[in-house]
Every structure is written in C-alpha cells, then in structure tokens.
C-alpha cells in the first residue's frame, strides 16, 4: 500500500442534493494532486466533502443530530423517509502509480431496508470482504473519528477548535491518534490470539494429572524382579520334584499290590479270626463220647425210640449190627466193640445216653457254629491262598503302599508348586502390564511437562513482545507529541509574516496552544471560533490552522489534505504563504472556497472545479450535471 493517494473520481447517488453524479478529478487521465473546488454558498461544495466523509466513515447511526446521521444525508425531496439506496463510490490512485490497474475503489451503500452500511473495497482485480475492506480503508482515512472528534485530513473552520484540542489527548497512550497510522492493532490482536490459544492448551494439559509417580514405577520394578526370582526358584524345585516323581513311579504290579493291600490285610484278618473261632469251637478228644451220646440220643428221639435207664440187649442182634457198622468204616472200633458187647448179653449202660439228652440242643448249636466257622475258615483260607498264588504278599503290598504314598505326596507337592507358579506368573503378567501402563503414563506426563514448559516459554516471549509494543507506544507517543508541538511552531514560523506573536504550549492537565505576544508576554487564548474578532483574530486562526496541520501530519493520514474555507480572517499575504506551504508539504491538496480571491491562491494548481447551482434546482442529476460543474484553469468569479 502506498503512503499518499489522489482522488481520481467519485460517483454519488441520492446523497443530499446530488441525485446521480459522476465527478472526474483527473486532468488528461491523470489525477490532480493540487486543486480547488470553488462555488458560491449552496453550490454543493460541502455536500461533496460530506459525501467523501460518509464514504470514508459511514453513517452515524447513534447520533441523530450528526451531519452524517441517516436522515441528515437524505435528499430533501424524500421528506425524511428513505426512498432508495444511498451510494457513494470513490476511486484513488497512489502517487507512485500512473496506471489505473492498482487503483483503490471503494463503494459505500446504505440500502433502503438495511440497518447498516455496506462497504466494498477492491484493489485492481482483488475484492476484499467487509472486515478487510474496513481495515484497508482505515489506512487511507485513519480510524473512524468519534461523534465529537474531527477528521484528520479535513480542516474545516467550525471544527478547527475541536481538531486542535486533540493535542490534549495526543499524549494519552490509550486514546492517541499518533498510533492510528502505525496499524499495531492487528499485530497486537494476533499476539493476543496466540496467547489465548496457548493458555487454553496450558489449561487443557494441566487438567487430568497422572496418577503414577516414578517411585511407584520403581516399586513395581522391584516387585517384578522379586517375583521373577521366586518363579525361577520354584521352577527349579519343580524340576527336582519331576525327577522324584519318576523315581517313585509304580509299575502295574505295584499298583495292583498297593490297591490290594487292604483286601489282603482284611483277608488275613478274616482267616485269623476264623482260625480262632474254629479253635474255640473245635471238638476235643475228651468230648467225643459226650457228642456221640448226644447224637445217638437225638437220633433215637427223632425215631421216637425210648431210651431206657438200662438196656436189655436181647432185643436186637447186636452182633450183626456191629458187623454191619464195622463194614461201613464209619464208626470207630471202640464203639463197634461196645455194640458187640451189648450183644454178648452184658447189656449197655444207658446212663450216658440218658444224660446226653440234656445236652442235645447245646451240641446241636455248637455243631452249627462249628460248621459255620469251618465254612468261614475255608473261605478265608481260599482268599489268602488266592493272594499267595498271585504273588501278593504282605511285604509286597506294604512296600507298594509305601511307595504309592510317597509318590502321591510328591504328586501333591508338585501340583501345589505348579499352582503357586501359575499364580505367580499371572501376578507377574499383571504387574508387567501395570508397569507398561505406568511407564507410558509417566512418559506422557514428562512430554506434557515439556510441552507445558515450551508453551510457558513461548508465552513469555509473547508477553514480552506485547509489553515491548506497549512501552514503544508510550515512547512513540511522547516523541510524536514533542515533534507535533515543534511542528506547530515550525509551521507558524514558516507562515507567519507579521511576527508579533509566537505559539506556546500551556502544559497543564489539558495542554493547549496559546499565543504569547513577543513584546510584553501577554497570553492570548484561542477563543471559541464564533468570537474570533479581536486584533489577534487572524493570528488565532493561523495558530489553529498550524495546529491542525501538525496534528493531521502526525496522524499519518493518506488522504489529500482538504482545507475548507478555514482561514477567513487571515490576511491575504499570510493566506498565500499558508497555501504555498501546505501544497508543498502535503503534496496533494484540495482547497475548498467560495471566495474568488482565495480561489486564486493556489499557484501551480492542477485546476479548479467550478460548481454553479442555481437556487431553482432541487438536485443535481444527469440532466443538469454538466451545467453544474466544470473544470477551469482559474476560478470564475
């Protein structure tokens, strides 16, 4: 962007008395740098200036009495009601450019149903959005002045006092126009945005602190190490047990022997018991006769044969019976002899037989028991015999059982160890997982801390930059304030031809320039513009103009300087000098006046825009436009 611009053209639609006009400010297609706009009262000079101002800063919606408020810019014919769009377009060209390719074109529109202006700016083929348009524009015209502030590039009589009072605000770092040109807002905003983004990230990182500590990780590492050693130890013991298991393994026979041990013991116990019982029930030799008699008696009773006390042997052929019984080989000979003796007629003593009758039932019972014991004995003997035939001995079964017990014990121990190792390995796996988690978390924490530190360092730099800019602003304002004060004096010294007064800054709470009469030091204050009629009235006005020029210069505004009839009380020669100095210093200037004499002040001017508006006209439009204005070399009186 260039530093100085000239106005190339304007198009105005429905702005006050200008219904539809195009004003061309070029001379043979080149912008005029120094020109006069001349016209009598009501010819439209102020309207053109207001249109430029409105295009630059927009409608003052809040202040109904401001000249640029909505209804104040309506054509009179609308009677206070908007009847169409209000549009002002301007075209600027930089001093360095002779071609229109990079001209800045801006267009402000207030549509009939809209509550805001619309500003469109384009440079060459590039169109800017609203935000960029306003920023671009502000570089040409400076920041939008407040409702009661003056415009920096437009020196107008009624506003000179206001403009000169900006001196008192100039030293205020928060409200100084000196910085408008420097365009630091964008850098400051960018730094603030960066800062806020970082602070948000710092806040985000700061939340959710990790739960793991380095001490925790150390403890887990120690625990894992201990566990691994323990597992190793148990595994070694397990291997030993495995080897023992092999040593105490049973073959099939041993397994069988071990299984049969109980049965074997039981069978032997049964045999012994049966033996004892048999031994107890065994009929002794001395008991045989009693048994015999009891059996005989039982037989006889069964056959219902009476047993006499004594016995007559004649009834039977006892000799034959004895012979018969002898043949059976079942009866012992002694009894055969007894029976034969009965036959011999000696008779038989039946007392034993008779006595045996009492013992029949006990002998019957004993014999039954004996039979049972015998059966039991045989059975037990068979079982034991069977074990023996199969090689199942007491020694073998005892040995097998012992071996089995040992083996089982080893197996139990082996299982327990295996279980323990399994538990430890599961525990180890869990701890390793926890360690990995803790390691990852601590690493993330460490990275977080590093990032936090990095952000804090970056923020330190950003704060330092902002602080440096703030301090630089203060320094710059002070320097610019001092140089502006000097510029006022320089302008005065250059333009004042009388030399009676000198400007002086009264440096109080609200600094302002006053005139000090050189001969006696009398102070003349700049009074309200309406009352400038004293002897120093012209000097006061000149002081105001010099102040305004210095203020405008230091604001850095890039618009052509416009002087709008701001030196009515200054003498002619001083006026000439003033205009000469301004044209030379500012390079681009528009002098607006209704005074032919003043209109002729600009030497080396690029032309005069003569405006002639008869009172009978309501507005300027296409039909009367060419009559209204024309460019001349000089002012037409």
């Amino acid at each position, binding site marked *: *962007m*260039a*530093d*100085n611009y000239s106005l190339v053209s304007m198009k105005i639609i429905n702005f006050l008395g200008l219904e539809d006009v195009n004003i061309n400010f070029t001379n043979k297609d080149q912008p005029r740098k120094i020109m006069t706009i001349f016209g009598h009262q009501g010819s439209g000079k102020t309207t053109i200036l207001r249109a430029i101002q409105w295009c630059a800063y927009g409608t003052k919606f809040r202040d109904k009495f401001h000249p640029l408020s909505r209804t104040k810019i309506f054509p009179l014919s609308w009677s206070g009601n908007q009847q169409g769009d209000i549009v002002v377009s301007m075209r600027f060209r930089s*001093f*360095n450019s002779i071609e229109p390719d990079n001209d800045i074109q801006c267009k402000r529109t207030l549509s009939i149903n809209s509550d805001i202006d619309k500003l469109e700016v384009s440079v060459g083929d590039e169109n800017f959005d609203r*935000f*960029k348009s306003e*920023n*671009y524009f*502000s*570089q040409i015209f400076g920041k939008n002045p407040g409702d009661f502030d003056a415009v920096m590039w437009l020196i107008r009589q009624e506003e000179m006092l206001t403009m000169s009072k900006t001196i008192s605000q100039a030293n205020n770092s928060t409200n100084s126009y000196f910085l408008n*040109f*420097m*365009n*630091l*807002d*964008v*850098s400051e*905003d*960018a*730094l603030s*945005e*960066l800062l806020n983004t970082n602070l948000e990230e710092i806040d985000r990182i700061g939340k959710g602190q990790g739960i793991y500590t380095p001490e925790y990780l150390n403890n887990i590492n120690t625990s894992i190490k201990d566990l691994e050693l323990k597992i190793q130890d148990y595994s070694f013991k397990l291997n030993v047990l495995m080897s023992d298991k092999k040593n105490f393994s049973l073959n099939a026979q041993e397994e069988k022997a071990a299984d049969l041990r109980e049965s074997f013991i039981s069978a032997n116990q049964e045999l012994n018991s049966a033996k004892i019982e048999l031994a107890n029930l065994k009929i002794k030799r001395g008991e045989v006769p009693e048994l015999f008699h009891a059996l005989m008696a039982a037989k006889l009773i069964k056959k219902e044969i009476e047993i006499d006390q004594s016995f007559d042997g004649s009834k039977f052929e006892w000799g034959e019976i004895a012979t018969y019984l002898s043949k059976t080989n079942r009866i012992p000979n002694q009894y055969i002899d007894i029976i034969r003796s009965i036959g011999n007629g000696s008779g038989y003593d039946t007392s034993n037989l008779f006595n045996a009758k009492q013992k029949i039932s006990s002998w019957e019972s004993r014999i039954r028991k004996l039979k049972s014991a015998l059966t039991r004995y045989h059975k037990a003997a068979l079982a034991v015999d069977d074990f023996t035939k199969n090689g199942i001995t007491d020694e073998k079964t005892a040995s097998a059982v012992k071996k089995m017990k040992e083996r089982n014990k080893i197996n139990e121990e082996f299982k327990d160890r295996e279980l323990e190792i399994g538990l430890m390995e599961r525990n180890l796996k869990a701890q390793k997982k926890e360690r990995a988690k803790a390691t990852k978390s601590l690493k993330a924490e460490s990275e977080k801390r590093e990032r936090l*530190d*990095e952000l*804090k*360092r*970056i923020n*330190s*730099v*950003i*704060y*330092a*930059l902002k*602080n*440096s*800019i703030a*301090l*630089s602003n203060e*320094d*710059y304002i002070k*320097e*610019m304030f001092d140089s502006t004060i000097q510029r006022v004096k320089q302008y005065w010294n250059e333009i004042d031809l009388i030399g009676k007064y000198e400007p002086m800054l009264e440096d109080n709470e609200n600094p302002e320039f006053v005139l000090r009469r050189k001969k006696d030091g009398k102070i003349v204050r700049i009074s309200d513009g309406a009352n400038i009629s004293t002897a120093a009235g012209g000097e006061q006005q000149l002081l105001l103009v010099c102040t305004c020029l210095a203020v405008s*210069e230091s604001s*850095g505004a*890039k618009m052509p*300087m416009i002087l709008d009839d701001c030196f009515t009380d200054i003498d002619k020669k001083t006026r000439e000098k003033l205009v000469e100095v301004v044209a030379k*210093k*500012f*390079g681009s200037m528009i002098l607006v006046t209704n005074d032919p004499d003043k209109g002729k002040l600009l030497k080396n001017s690029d032309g005069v825009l003569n405006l002639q508006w008869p009172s009978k006209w309501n507005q300027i439009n296409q039909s009367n436009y060419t009559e209204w204005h024309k460019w001349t070399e000089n002012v037409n009186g």
Partner: protein
Amino acid sequence: MSETYHQRLREKYSRILQERLSNDEIISQLSDKDIELLFNELRKWFGTSPPETSRVKSGLKEIIQQKIDSDVIELGD
C-alpha cells in the same frame, strides 16, 4: 505530506521498538538473530494496509513457535 514522511514515521517507531526489544528482560535472552526475526516480522505491518489478523497471526506463530529458539528462556518459579 511527502512520501518519505510516512517512511520516517515507520523508521521512528521501528527504532523505538528495536530498543525496547533489546532491553526487554525476556527477549534479550534470545539470540540476536532471533530478536531480529521477531522485529522484522512485526515491522512488516507498520503503517501498511492491515491484513487479516489470521495472516499476521500465522506469520508470528511460525516465527515464535518454529523459528526462534525459545528453550533459552528461563522460566521463573
């Protein structure tokens, strides 16, 4: 106003800012090259057509986050 007047305003502010940057407690910890990088990035926008904040931000961000060595900055307690 002559074309050089605006340039003088920029130079004046640049001089002031450069001095402030060199004297700043934090900025002075950076290398001269980094200070110059920061300074040049800022002065790019003095008194020019104001670009969008995002463009200035991205330029400054690149310098501050990627190009200068801010590890030399000592963090206070």
